[in-house]
């Protein structure tokens, strides 16, 4: 597959930026808020999709990195009062360090062990805020004050400014990630994901490559956390539960793992499905416990159905749909290079056993392992 050229990427980003500005002015303030929310989600999910989709590492703890970014933002804003752009950079740097630490600890872990370790990071870290209420405000959290800059005038809606800031960060992140994935770093990630041993033999420093992926993904999550802090104006542990971490992974997979447009699709599902399901459920005069739980159940059904209907995520479906119109957005061969995935269509659990630990190696090479 040929890489997209930088000008094309920048052009696409510019188009989206213009769209955001137009939409944020045309739509009502609540939609501005939703744009900001989606941009935040996209930022975090894009980082995770790089980690999981490109470097092959799972993280169920990226919500904790968001918490780190958010608390950093709150603490600096509260105590030092620095401008947001500086705070954002520092939040990114702090979470990058946190990502390096976790990545270092996780470098030897695989599959469910990595999932378990990161899950606990996601559960444990926010509870630290409760243990040290003096610093982190405990359960009530820390307030963040964020205002529109003076040059926009007094009447400029705050939500619109928030939407712009969040979208700008999200777009810059996407452009950088797109470049990164095309670079040598991205190639190394894929090499390590597909076959660690082969990558190591080819001279790739496996541990460093894996850790770098964690750093990148944590940095994205940290920036998303910083944005979340200025949009919700409060940083409290209740916002960073394990549900958040799981939602991020869900968004990445639902959207289409390893694809940046997929990060957007996944974010849209995560943010919009519950909202619309709630609107539908509450408008039918059902009893409260039924109406409030229908969106929950519907969300579960959506997750299951998307995964069954679009195994490659929504972006996979989009590619397929575009392909119907002959638009060559799809990669030439979706899965042809990995022949062992579906040895027999339909109910064929035989191969899944051989899939997980040593990923992606075709059966012929795997059978060679039998050499004593």
């Amino acid at each position: 597959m040929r890489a997209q050229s930088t000008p094309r990427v920048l052009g696409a980003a510019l188009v989206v930026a213009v769209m955001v500005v137009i939409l944020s002015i045309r739509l009502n303030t609540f939609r501005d808020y939703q744009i900001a929310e989606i941009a935040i989600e996209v930022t975090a999910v894009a980082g995770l999709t790089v980690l999981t989709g490109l470097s092959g590492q799972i993280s169920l703890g990226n919500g904790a990195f968001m918490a780190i970014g958010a608390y950093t933002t709150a603490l600096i804003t509260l105590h030092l009062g620095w401008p947001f752009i500086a705070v954002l950079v520092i939040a990114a740097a702090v979470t990058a360090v946190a990502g390096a630490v976790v990545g270092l600890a996780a470098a030897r872990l695989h599959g469910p062990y990595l999932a378990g370790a990161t899950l606990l990071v996601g559960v444990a870290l926010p509870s630290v805020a409760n243990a040290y209420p003096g610093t982190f405000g405990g359960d009530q959290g820390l307030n963040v004050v964020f205002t529109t800059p003076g040059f926009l005038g007094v009447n400029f809606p705050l939500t619109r400014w928030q939407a712009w800031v969040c979208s700008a960060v999200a777009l810059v992140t996407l452009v950088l990630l797109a470049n990164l994935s095309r670079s040598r770093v991205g190639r190394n990630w894929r090499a390590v994901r597909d076959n660690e041993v082969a990558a190591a033999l080819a001279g790739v420093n496996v541990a460093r490559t894996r850790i770098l992926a964690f750093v990148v993904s944590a940095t994205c999550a940290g920036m998303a956390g910083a944005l979340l802090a200025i949009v919700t104006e409060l940083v409290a542990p209740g916002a960073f539960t394990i549900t958040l971490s799981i939602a991020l992974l869900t968004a990445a997979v639902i959207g289409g793992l390893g694809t940046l447009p997929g990060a957007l699709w996944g974010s849209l599902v995560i943010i919009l499905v519950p909202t619309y399901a709630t609107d539908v459920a509450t408008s039918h005069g059902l009893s409260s416990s039924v109406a409030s739980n229908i969106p929950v159940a519907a969300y579960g059904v959506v997750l299951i159905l998307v995964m069954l209907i679009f195994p490659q995520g929504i972006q996979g479906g989009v590619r397929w749909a575009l392909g119907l119109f002959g638009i060559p957005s799809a990669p030439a061969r979706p899965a042809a290079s990995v022949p062992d995935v579906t040895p027999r269509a339909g109910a064929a659990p035989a191969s899944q056993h051989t899939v997980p630990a040593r990923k992606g190696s075709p059966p012929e090479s795997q059978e060679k392992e039998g050499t004593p």
Partner: protein
Amino acid sequence: MVEFLQFTLSGISFGMIYAAIALSLVLIWRGTRLLNFAQGGMAMFTTYVAIEVVHHTGSYWAGFAAALAAGVVLGAVAELAVIRPALGKPELNAVIITIGLLVLLEGLAGILYGGQFRSFPAAFSVIGLRAGSTPLGVSRFDVFVAGAVLATTLLLAIGFRYTSVGLRMRAAAFNATVARLSGIRVARVITLGWALAGLLGALAGVLVSPSTFLYPNSMDSIFVLGFTAAVIGGLDSPVGAVVGGLLLGVALSYAAGYLGSQGSDLTTVVALVILVVVLMFRPDGIFSGARVRRV
């Protein structure tokens, strides 16, 4: 000293619950190489079934049996309906499907039973036992909990080791290709594994609910700790699941007991520390050594 005993015993009784969840995860992992995030949700749902049965029949044991039966059915149906179609697809798809299943079950429980705390009876007295005049901090029911989990584990171990079905399950888990080529219907074996996991989860739900009360999310934190226990023990090892569960239960009990009010805040941090330390030395869990690496 008395406190130490009490911390230990109460830790063991909770650890047994984590062990039961961990065991169910191990069963599914060995059969399907999949983490079942819906395990806690399935346990929650089957406990609601048990409550309904207890309510209508007035018999605790009827509810108990109904929960286990519902667990078997739920496990098998889940595997057949949503997991099997996802096998052979990217491996995270099935994980997301189990998350979807969890959310769906929690939503359904809310729709059907409401979001309130429900209390589930205990099989035996919840009044504490004493050694002489010293209260031990465990009740007859806690002893039953530990006994039930241990007995189930033992039964499973014996079944795995000495029966033909057990041999089929192990063969399918260790090498599905050879198993299929030997005529073992691996798909059925996997369904059976899910059914057994459902049963274990249901057991955990029925046993823990008197101590947590029941609501749609009541198994969430139990699941996290059960999962942690399985990872600590090694996901391929049933023995590891039990050891991991006990280790975690006791350690968290000490943390809450000895670290004061910060200890209760930091229970999950303590769990994280244990997990990290274990994985530092054994990246595949404590009992990974018991499993032979395929050459």
